[in-house]
């Protein structure tokens, strides 16, 4: 027999490739990973006010178009490619529309005043995007107004007025926008259901794929892999990485599709990646623990997803947390979903970075360490050579 060329054994690559390929052959599993989260995002999002049907972000405006300032602002807003101006009769109606999610943001322009009132729900990604667009439009109007006033006062001609406009644009902040939150807390619509379902399905599907780990144990695949010339820790690591990649891929898929299809703004990408990564580690730890403790592959889908749903309920992933009450929300914070929601909703607010969610990240990291550490200890004992 001719000797074969030998390279370095690749247990992690082998296990990850095999496990991911197995997942792609599981049609039911793929349905729950690729389709089901978006069904949930859409239907629950519509139920709590996410469906708008507008081509741009709908911004409600209460204004008298005969007022020159109002007319100028409306003209700017209507000319903005990302906005769709929706006339609203009263400030109360405007606030109600924003609260229910029918409007991404609202603007009240009192007649004869340059102090405008911006209405948006805190941490609503669509609202933040609308605010940004409104700020630009209002700034342009403010600059023109200031430039005009300056030109008149100085008796300048048309050429000089252009220079005054440039200067006025730099001082546009004199036209103030007052930020008012009508939701009193969490956003509505897709801005809420997207992070909620990210956490829910990342966890549930991680628990569901734990069945594959039970199956590997039952088939004797892990034992057989341990007869290869590879360190045992590599086999353990390969199984963990496989589950982590599934959890992370689930999260990335939801983020990308919800951003593109529903206009959800997730916030600082780095901070979101940290939160989602740590949460995926929590889900991985839970999956490996379940996959190691259970004896039959049929037990995993029977236990894992229901557990994930219960934790999701407590964490505010199935319906808005305002509906759950303080007690449930307090209990929810014993589990990872509530902390994940806190972090992701906070990051959707403009100007929020990793520093604002460090407590949540710390708690999630602790949970990940406990679950992963515990699962690896159990896994190690179950496969130890004695």
């Amino acid at each position, binding site marked *: 027999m001719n000797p*074969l060329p*030998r*390279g370095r054994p*690749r247990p992690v690559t082998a296990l990850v490739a*095999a496990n991911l390929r197995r997942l792609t052959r599981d049609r039911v599993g793929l349905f729950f990973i690729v389709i089901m989260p978006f069904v949930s995002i859409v239907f629950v999002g519509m139920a709590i006010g996410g469906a708008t049907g507008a081509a741009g972000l709908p911004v409600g405006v209460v204004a008298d178009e005969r007022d020159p300032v109002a007319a100028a602002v409306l003209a700017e807003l209507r000319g903005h490619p990302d906005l769709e101006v929706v006339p609203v009769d009263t400030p109360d109606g405007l606030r109600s529309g924003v609260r229910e999610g029918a409007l991404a943001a609202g603007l009240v322009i009192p007649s004869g005043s340059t102090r405008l009132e911006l209405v948006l729900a805190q941490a609503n990604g669509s609202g933040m995007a609308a605010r940004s667009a409104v700020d630009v439009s209002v700034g342009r109007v403010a600059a023109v107004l200031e430039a005009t006033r300056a030109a008149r006062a100085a008796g300048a001609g048309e050429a000089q007025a252009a220079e005054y406009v440039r200067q006025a644009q730099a001082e546009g902040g004199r036209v103030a926008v007052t930020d008012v939150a009508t939701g009193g807390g969490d956003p509505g619509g897709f801005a809420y259901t997207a992070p909620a379902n990210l956490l829910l399905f990342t966890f549930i599907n991680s628990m569901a794929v734990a069945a594959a780990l039970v199956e590997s144990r039952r088939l004797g695949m892990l034992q057989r892999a*341990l007869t290869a*010339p590879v360190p045992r820790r590599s086999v353990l690591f390969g199984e963990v990485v496989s589950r982590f990649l599934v959890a992370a891929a689930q999260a990335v898929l939801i983020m990308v599709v919800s951003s593109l299809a529903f206009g959800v703004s997730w916030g600082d990408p780095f901070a979101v990646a940290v939160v989602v990564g740590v949460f995926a580690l929590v889900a991985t730890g839970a999956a490996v623990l379940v996959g190691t403790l259970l004896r039959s592959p049929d037990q995993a889908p029977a236990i894992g997803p229901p557990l994930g749903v219960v934790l999701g309920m407590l964490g505010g992933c199935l319906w808005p947390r305002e509906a759950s009450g303080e007690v449930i929300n307090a209990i929810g914070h014993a589990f990872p979903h509530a902390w994940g929601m806190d972090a992701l909703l906070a990051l959707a607010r403009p100007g929020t970075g990793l520093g604002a969610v460090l407590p949540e990240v710390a708690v999630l990291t602790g949970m990940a360490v406990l679950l992963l550490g515990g699962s690896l200890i159990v896994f190690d004992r179950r496969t130890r050579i004695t």
Partner: protein
Amino acid sequence: MTATLTCEGLRKRYGDVTAVEDVGFSIAPGQAYGLLGPNGAGKTTTISILVGLLRPDAGTVLVGGTDLAADPRRAKAAIGYVPQEIALYPELTGRENLRFFGRLFGLPRRALAARIEEVLDLIGLTDRADGRLDTYSGGMRRRINIGAALLHRPAVLILDEPTVGVDPQSRKAILDGLELLVREGMSLLYTSHYMEEVERICDRVAIIDHGRIIAEGTRRELIAMVGTADKVELVLDGDVPAAFAKLRAVEGVVEAARTEDGSVRLIAEGGRYLLPALITAVEGSATVTATQVIEPDLEATFLHLTGASLRD
């Protein structure tokens, strides 16, 4: 020449229960070695120690001269292990399963692709290589199960009951393949409930019972342990006691015993040739209505040594 696999003084206990005790044997390059024993005799425990899944309480395992305990990675690289159960991913194709094991053993991509084709050809599954394993018959899965252990071209192939539940066609394909591997110089350690498989493939056989090797040698040596006498069973109709007395007196009959159902069991040298004389001897007392002659074989040796049938 260095033995491909040597084990000495293997002992494994679970509390007060002794799984194996003082087990030792050696397999030369290109030798097929059979390990026979009833259920619970210690075969799987022994194999688990040899492939590194169990740590013995005492004893050593050398694979091509490498101590398994001291350098497990080097030793394991020379072993191909075929477990009793089908340890493969059912959702993957036969080829994908082979690729998985090839990666575990560190075969470079190009060499692995070529080796997979060789193995598929050897196990006769080239045409079905890209079908999912859960669409295979039991025999085809068994063949992939063996193929997965052959990818890295091990020096010794350890097979634990590799043909359980296999159809005759697949069994023949498996045995033909194993014989080919032995001819090419691979060593085998083979356990099976099917005595005829062991008799066909193995050069040497160890019989293990209650965790100890109670006999070891070539097939001829083991059969000789129970002598060369045949067992002859006669079913009689008539005066059985009188006929029994006449049969005991026939020259060549070593032992004789009556059973409750009226038949007589004899141990007789050259019993198969003695039948006419035995039938003639009982004339006048009884009539012989049925006969059976059992020549000594490995099964008889096993029965003689362990007191149990191999398939019990």
